[in-house]
């Protein structure tokens, strides 16, 4: 009986945890220690191919790419985490109120969401960045704003659905306060949906951040970010293909990790329901 209810471990979860775990570990480690300095330049070591000393090789300033990838992972993770947190919290608040109460507020918000959705996101970030200036916080704010609508949509839909669930009707009959209904009665039930969209949001944030860095509106040098390294490396595709390869693979690694984790969680959660 108890056994049957235990959540089932699955391959997706294991692979996802391993991949994100490693990325997060390297990212955090990169804040405190890297094999080489991430900024120290050395003319002698310019563009050395991957070897025992520099497993990912070195870049145009002779900096160790592995160390920079570590740092880049950190930057990327910090940004995507903050973006997702920011947009998820805002999305939950907005989505909860509009979904549950509906009305004119809902109508207005949905129109704005539509507009933001229709607006090319890269452009929106471009405009926000032009307004706020570059730099890490502003990237977070810009992406955060861009990501809010998707969360609002999901959360709103769920609240709209659960608003009429029998157990919520009951809570209303009991005289439970509105805020308590919103956040104590309903919210925990959309947790798994939220979790999956957070995972997807994570991926999109990572991709968007690297995309922004690639277009030169992301974080600023000498802060290493994976997208920025990739964009820098594009000029040296022939001389030093590894310069583009490893940051790119790092992005793939971490995005894949989160996808697998999301999939794994979905399955894990699903096995409970059975």
């Amino acid at each position: 009986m108890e056994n049957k209810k235990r959540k089932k471990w699955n391959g997706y979860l294991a692979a996802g945890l391993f991949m994100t775990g490693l990325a997060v570990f390297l990212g955090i480690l990169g804040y405190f220690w890297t094999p080489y300095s991430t900024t120290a330049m050395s003319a002698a070591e310019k563009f050395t191919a991957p070897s025992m000393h520099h497993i990912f090789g070195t870049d145009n300033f002779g900096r160790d790419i592995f160390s920079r990838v570590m740092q880049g992972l950190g930057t990327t993770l910090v940004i995507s985490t903050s973006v997702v947190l920011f947009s998820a919290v805002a999305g939950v608040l907005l989505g909860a109120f509009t979904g549950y109460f509906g009305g004119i507020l809902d109508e207005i918000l949905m129109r704005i969401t539509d507009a933001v959705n229709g607006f090319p996101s890269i452009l929106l970030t471009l405009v926000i960045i032009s307004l706020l200036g570059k730099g890490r916080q502003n990237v977070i704010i810009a992406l955060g704003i861009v990501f809010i609508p998707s969360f609002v949509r999901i959360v709103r839909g769920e609240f709209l659905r659960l608003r009429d669930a029998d157990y919520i009707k009951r809570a209303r009959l009991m005289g439970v306060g509105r805020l308590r209904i919103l956040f104590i009665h309903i919210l925990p039930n959309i947790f798994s949906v939220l979790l999956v969209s957070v995972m997807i949001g994570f991926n999109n944030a990572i991709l968007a951040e690297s995309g922004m860095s690639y277009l030169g509106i992301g974080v600023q040098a000498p802060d290493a970010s994976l997208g920025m390294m990739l964009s820098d490396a594009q000029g040296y595709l022939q001389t030093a293909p590894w310069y583009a390869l490893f940051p790119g693979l790092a992005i793939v690694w971490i995005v894949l990790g989160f996808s697998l984790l999301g999939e794994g969680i979905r399955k894990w959660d699903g096995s409970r329901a059975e």
Partner: protein
Amino acid sequence: MKVEQQKDSKQKKIVQIEDLSVSFDGMEVVKHVNIEVNSGEIVGIVGESGSGKSITSLTLMGLLSKQAQVTSGKIIVDGEVLREADRPFDERLYRRFQGSRMSMIFQEPMTSLNPTKKAGVQVDEIVRLHTDLEKEKRYEKVLETFQAVGLKDAKKVYDSYPHQLSGGMRQRVMIAMAVILHPDLIIADEPTTALDVTIQTQIVELLKDINKSEQNAMLFITHDLNLARRICHKVVVMKDGVVVEADETEKIFMHPKEAYTRNLIEAVPSRLKPRISVKKESNTKVLTVKDLSVYYEDRTNSIFKKKEKQYAVEHVSFDVYEGESLGLVGESGCGKTSLSKAILGMQEHMSGEVSCHVSRPQMIFQDPYSSLNPSKTIGWLLMEPLRAAGILDKKCAMSKADRKAAAYDMLARVGMDEKYFHRLPSELSGGQRQRISIAQALITNPGFIIADEPVSALDVTIQAQIMELLQKLQEEMNLSYLFISHDINVVYHMCDRIMVMKDGRMIEIGETEDIFHDPKEAYTKSLLV
């Protein structure tokens, strides 16, 4: 209600299920089952939920999912061995039988049809697959069959999508699909459970007629013993995958050999077992409803037109007295739920007067699965109403320890063990959930409770338990009920007075016995069939 046995000399064996066992992941859910069906015969399989009825019939039909394995026995249809334990599933062989020589009517008329194909086309497909008829011929044949199963406007039905048809019509389409090729065997897996009483009767009569005229074999699966008694020649009683008893219908009903069968028969709420009245003489009203109307604003109209009011409840007046159960019956869509929502103040548009003389009346919902917050433990669910009441009314405020004690107490009163306190709703069975749902409604001592079809979703056996519990609690706590159901037998069993609704209007109200034995309205009579 005896069904005359067809004593036909031409009777032959259509289905022989011999020693059939089916298992999922090594777990046997059907164990050594033997069933025989002859042509012209309706054999019923009855048994509580999960007893393996559907699995048996699906195996027979060759529709078992991949995870399932036939571990022993064989299935013979029309003399041909379709399935044997140690032979792999032969898809081709089965396809020769499926549709043309045996067909199946499923439980859910709502979902068993492809939602994006026209009803006619779906019936046409089966003819197309198994005959060489031309298009026009097929069209005619489908229309004919539609008419035969009582779909009057056959052409319109042909071009309708399933969602445009009512439940009864859909089930008729399914039946048309099943009979169009005159198969030797028809399996009907709970074909009426999802339908209204009135429609239920029609469908059952239809199946009976078909059986009579076509002289085919029919396997009729149901958990409703009354129904089985009405239609079947023979009955097979199943429990936990095992055939407990199999015999001629009347024999089973009159002289059940097994205790289980006896239980099953007794659990049936029948008018043979009227309510033991718990009503105390009292004239204190707990609820007064005067001239209540409820309407919805029709959303389908364009912005240019004025919104139209659609009345779900019209001019209904009644009272509920302390300690009594008032039953409310009526077919689906007659406004029962709308009325109860209006009483509880959950209805947007209403007119008339509702005065409730007890504080915070509560409601028990039909579906035990959706009426408990799935992310909270049972304990939390029971304590929450007390907490809310405490905030609303300082007098009721309780300490956390007190709330906990009250919750444990309530748990015990609905007959559940303490160990469930920390469980999640998903870890309970349907019956247990409904108990918790009742406990949650009762814990604040509301005095008046609306129970909206609280047992419709449950098994017969569990139904009986829950009804018993409701009566017990009523006695203990001096409760009043407004008890809603579409099943008049259930109401008979539970209520002191009965109110009958049709199309939003109250057509009759009176003492239970009066209504039953001397119904004034024709509609009420039709409910009593």
